[in-house]
C-alpha cells in the first residue's frame, strides 16, 4: 500500500519536472502555429486564439532552408559512412591485428577527445585556402572526419575486443585474409555498435557549427546551424516566424532521436563507461 503511494507521488513530481524541462520546446510549437498579431496581443504564455501554418512557409523561404537542408544532407551522406568505415578499420587493427605501438596510437587518438576544435581553425583555414576549397562543403569533410575519429574508434575498438578470437582464428585457418575477416565477420557481428556510432556521428555532423561558420561564406553553401544563426538575426522581431524557423531546423533531429533513442543511449553508455 505505502509502496504504490510512494511510486505515485514520485511519478507526479517527476512528471511536473519533465513538463518544466520540455516547456521551452512546447512554447516554441505553440508560438510557431499562431499569427504574430495574436502572439503580440495575448503574450507568449497564452493559448493561441487562431492557428496558422503561414509562419512555416515564411520561415522556410526567408531562412533559405531548402538550401541549408540540402547542404547538411550532402555532408551527412559524404562524411558519416566514410568516417565510420575508416574508424572501424583502425579500431579493428587496434583490437584484433596486434598492431605495433597499439597503446601509443590509442593514447594519441583518444587524446583527440579532449582537444577543443578551435585550436585547429587557423591552420585548417589556411590549408583550405591554399587548396582552394574554402566556401565549399568538400573543405569541411577532412576536419569533420578527424574530429569524429576519436570517439568512433573508442567505441568500436572496445566492441571488437569482445568478439571471440576463436571465430577470427577459424576464418584464418579457412584461408580468409585480414580484409575478408574484417568485412565478412567482424563488421556484421558488430552491427549494433556500428549503428550507434553511425547515429551519434550523424547527430554531431548535423549540429557542427564552428568549422562551418569559418569555412563557408556564401548562402548557397551554408549548413543548417549557420543558416539558423543568420535567420535568427533577420527574424529577431518576428517571434512567431523565429519559432517556426527554429522548429524547421530541429524537427528532423527530434524525430530521428525519438525513434532511434535506444541506439543513442546504448552507444553513449558503452562509449563512455567500460565499453
Amino acid at each position, binding site marked *: 500500500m505505502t509502496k504504490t503511494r510512494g*511510486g505515485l507521488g514520485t*511519478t507526479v513530481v*517527476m512528471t511536473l519536472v*519533465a513538463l518544466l524541462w*520540455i516547456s*521551452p520546446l512546447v512554447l*516554441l510549437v505553440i508560438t510557431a502555429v499562431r499569427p504574430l498579431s495574436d*502572439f503580440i496581443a495575448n*503574450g*507568449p*504564455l497564452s493559448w493561441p486564439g487562431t492557428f496558422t501554418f503561414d509562419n512555416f512557409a515564411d520561415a522556410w523561404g526567408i531562412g533559405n532552408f531548402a538550401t541549408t537542408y540540402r547542404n547538411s544532407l550532402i555532408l551527412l551522406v559524404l562524411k558519416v559512412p566514410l568516417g565510420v568505415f*575508416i574508424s572501424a*578499420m*583502425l579500431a579493428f*587493427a*587496434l583490437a584484433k*591485428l*596486434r*598492431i*605495433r605501438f597499439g*597503446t601509443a*596510437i*590509442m*593514447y594519441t587518438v*583518444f*587524446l583527440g577527445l579532449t*582537444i*577543443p*576544435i*578551435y*585550436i*585547429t581553425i*587557423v*591552420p*585548417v583555414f589556411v*590549408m583550405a585556402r591554399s587548396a582552394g576549397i574554402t566556401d565549399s562543403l568538400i573543405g569541411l569533410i*577532412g576536419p569533420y572526419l*578527424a574530429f569524429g*575519429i576519436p570517439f568512433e*574508434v*573508442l567505441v568500436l*575498438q572496445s566492441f571488437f575486443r569482445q568478439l571471440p578470437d576463436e571465430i577470427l582464428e577459424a576464418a584464418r585457418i579457412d584461408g580468409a585474409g585480414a580484409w575478408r575477416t574484417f568485412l565478412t565477420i567482424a563488421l556484421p557481428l558488430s552491427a549494433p555498435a556500428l549503428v550507434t556510432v553511425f547515429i551519434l556521428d550523424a547527430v554531431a555532423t548535423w*549540429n557542427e*557549427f*564552428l568549422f562551418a561558420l*569559418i569555412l563557408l561564406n556564401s548562402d548557397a553553401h551554408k549548413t543548417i*546551424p549557420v543558416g539558423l*544563426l543568420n535567420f*535568427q538575426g533577420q527574424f529577431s522581431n518576428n*517571434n512567431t516566424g*523565429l519559432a517556426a524557423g527554429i522548429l524547421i531546423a*530541429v524537427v528532423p*533531429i527530434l524525430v530521428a532521436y525519438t525513434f532511434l533513442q535506444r541506439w*543513442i*543511449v546504448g552507444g*553513449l*553508455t558503452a562509449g*563512455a563507461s*567500460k*565499453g
Partner: protein
Amino acid sequence: MRRREGLAAWVFAAPALIVYFVFLVYPALSSLWFSFTDWDGLSPGYNTVGLDNYKDMASDPVVRQAAVNNLIWAVVTVVVPVVLGLVLAVVLNGKVRGKPVLRLIFYTPAVLPLVSVASIWGWLYNPQYGAINAALRAVGLDSLAQPWLGQDSTALGATMVAAIWLRVGFPMLLYLAALQGISPDLYEAATVDGASRWQQFWHITMPGLKPAHYVVIALSVIDSFKVFDLIYAMTYGGPGTATQVMGTWMYFNVFQYNQAGYGTAIAVVITVVAVAVSIPYVRSQTKEHAI
C-alpha cells in the same frame, strides 16, 4: 607470417590515422607555431615574436575576464548537471511510471544543435516578448523581469542556465546505466538491517557509482572547456565583454581583429589546460583496453 600481419594492420590503420594527423594533430601543432608569431591571418609573411603573445595575454583584461568566465562556466555547468543528473537517475531507477518517456524528455535538449538551443533561450529571455519575463509578470514579480542577456550582471548566468538545460541528460543516462549494475540484494539486506533510504544512498549507491562518477565528471569537464557555440550564438561575448570565454575571444582576435598569432596563443593556453586536466581519463581508457 607475422610480418605480413603486421603490414596488414598498418594498412587498416592508415586511412584514419592519416586523416587524424593531417586535420587534427598537424593543425593543432601548427597553431602552437603561429602562437609565437605576429601573423595577422591575411598577409603572406610574418615575424616570430617569441613569447610576446603570451606576455600580452597576461596584461589583457579580456583574457582575464574570459579565463574567470571559463572557470565559472566549468564549475557550474559540471557540478549542477552532474548533481541533477544523479538525482534524476536515482529517482528514475526507483518506482516511477513512464520511465522511458521521462528519460526521453530529459535527454532531448542534448541532441539539438547548440545554435538552436541558443536561439530558443535567446527567445525565452527576450525582454519584451520572452516567456520568462512574461511568467514573472504573470505571478506578480514584475520587478524581477529584466533584460537577462543584455546586462552584465545576469548574462553569463543566463547562458549557463541554457547549458544546464541541455547537459543534465548525459550524466543521467550514464548514472542510470551504472545503477543497473548495483545488486538489489545489497539494498534488501540493508533494509533488513534497518538502514534508512538516506543511509542506503550514501553507503551503497554512491560507492557503487564510483567508476561512473569518474567518467561522468571527466567527460563533463572536457566538454565544458570546449564552450564556444552557445556563447557565440547567444550573446556574441557581450554585452561588452561580459560573457567572453577563451574560445570566443580567440575567435574575435583571429577573425575580427586580424590578430591570428595572438588568437592562437589564447587557444593554445586553453587547450593545454583542457588536455592536462583530461590526461588521467585518456590514460584510464587506454589502460583498460590495452592487451
